């Protein structure tokens, strides 16, 4: 295992300490391992928190700051955090206007957030939750765990963060995330596996001429293993299910998010973006906003995901609102 770490069980703690040292103007780290916006709680502002396993950096800790998250709860690598963390985060950001939990749809995340939310409500804090489930690689069904929450989460956090900063109340904030959820779809693929530090070896073996299509963000194998294809072919394979599943039609303006899984160089993400732009043009859609880079990752996995969000004026306005976090920043 080749990693810049000291010991597998210290990675998360040391990385959080590193974040605190690097961004003292933005965040503080509190026990038990939560990343809290420097000036939280903000009186009268709805608190926005999220959380999930570590190993997806910059998500979520890198999104804590003005105009996005008020706190993040990072678990062990690829393991959802424990309720104590979400409870502490909820308390730390409660400015009296309630707290919104943004939860990615994984069994563990949902259950741990549920427990935290029960506990927080028991302590008299108003909590609302929205579950993000935007991965079209997984069939949407009542009888299964349902779709995973992936790239759409980043967009939801930015958009609701902008609205909350602007004074949206808890119900409005919750409705806004639900609106993002309704209008966003994602799909991802991997060229390589990654290695969970505590496991010490790659999660799966894969040949030099193979790839995994329909992966999530936990280094797991995907829905299908296929022969390696060209960037254009791969982009088609990801974009088509997204476009066919989602509320996208001719004339729409979309936010195009091409995300790296952690080990893929930016130059390749732009190659994908190039093809994606052509596909959207063919369908008569326009690129309203774009985001290209490593924002929701699986450690050092090589691969990418595509997320499309159908925009309207409201979503665009909150996307454009100022944000000041370690990983996303504009307007301030």
């Amino acid at each position: 295992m080749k990693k810049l770490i000291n010991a597998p069980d210290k990675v998360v703690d040391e990385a959080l300490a590193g974040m605190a040292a690097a961004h003292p103007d933005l965040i503080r780290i509190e026990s038990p391992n939560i990343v809290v916006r420097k000036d939280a709680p903000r009186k009268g502002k709805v608190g926005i928190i999220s959380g999930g396993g570590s190993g997806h950096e910059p998500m979520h800790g890198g999104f804590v700051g003005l105009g996005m998250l008020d706190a993040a709860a990072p678990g062990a690598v690829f393991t959802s955090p424990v309720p104590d963390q979400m409870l502490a985060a909820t308390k730390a950001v409660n400015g009296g206007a309630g707290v919104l939990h943004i939860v990615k749809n994984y069994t563990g995340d949902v259950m741990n957030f549920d427990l935290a939310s029960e506990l927080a409500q028991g302590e008299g804090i108003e909590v609302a939750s929205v579950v993000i489930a935007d991965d079209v690689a997984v069939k949407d069904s009542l009888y299964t765990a349902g779709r995973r929450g992936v790239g759409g989460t980043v967009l939801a956090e930015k958009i609701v963060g902008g609205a909350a900063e602007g004074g949206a109340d808890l119900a409005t904030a919750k409705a806004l995330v639900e609106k993002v959820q309704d209008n966003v779809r994602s799909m991802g693929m991997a060229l390589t596996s990654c290695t969970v530090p505590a496991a010490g070896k790659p999660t799966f073996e894969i040949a030099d001429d193979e790839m995994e299509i329909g992966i999530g963000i936990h280094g797991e194998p995907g829905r299908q293993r296929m022969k390696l294809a060209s960037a254009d072919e791969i982009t088609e394979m990801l974009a088509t299910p997204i476009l066919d599943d989602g509320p996208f039609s001719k004339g729409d303006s979309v936010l195009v998010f091409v995300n790296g899984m952690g080990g893929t160089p930016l130059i390749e993400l732009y190659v994908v973006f190039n093809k994606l732009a052509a596909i959207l043009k063919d369908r008569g859609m326009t690129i309203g906003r774009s985001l290209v880079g490593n924002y929701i990752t699986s450690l050092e996995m090589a691969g990418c995901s595509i997320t499309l969000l159908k925009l309207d004026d409201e979503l665009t306005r909150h996307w454009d609102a100022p944000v000041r976090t370690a990983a996303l920043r504009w307007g301030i």
Partner: protein
Amino acid sequence: MPITVDQLARFVELFAERLAAEKENLTRLDSAIGDADHGINMDRGFQAVLGKLPEISSDSAGGLFKGVGMTLVSTVGGASGPLYGTFFLRAGGALGDTTDVTAEQLAAALRAGLEGVIQRGKAELDDKTMVDALSPAVDAFDRSLDGSLPNALAAAASAAAAGRDRVTPLVARKGRASYLGERSAGHQDPGATSTTIMIEALRDALQPGA
């Protein structure tokens, strides 16, 4: 002869020991159809339990199990944290402040734990989860209660293992393995495996003379 709190603490220790020994194997199973952390998660939780055992080994069986459950909820995370946490919390709730546990009380505790897991995770039989080991184990224990406790525990352990193996060919419908669709078929479920280890640890810890 009733079961003592010490014997139940011994069960917890034994489960922890075996999880530590099986850590890599459980993680390997989770690599194939999950995210390669089940052994790591369970071991992290039960190492924490071991560390807290002096503190949580209260005088009552319920107190012990509740302490285990709380510790798991606070240290494991993932799916297994709330599920195993709930199992022990509910089982502990059923046991209450009794110190000498009868076989019937243990049966009720296991049943309460199982119901807690189902309520929390909403898995049904054949979804290919820990429920597929736990549910037949609890049923088998109930069915064999009129015989000796060791026999009932042996039946429960066999049923757990059989349930674990029975669902290996199935396609998972809950948990991360469900994301793999058809590819999950043929792989042994990590959670059903750790649950079988748990029931076996219970069997062995409550063996006469153990």
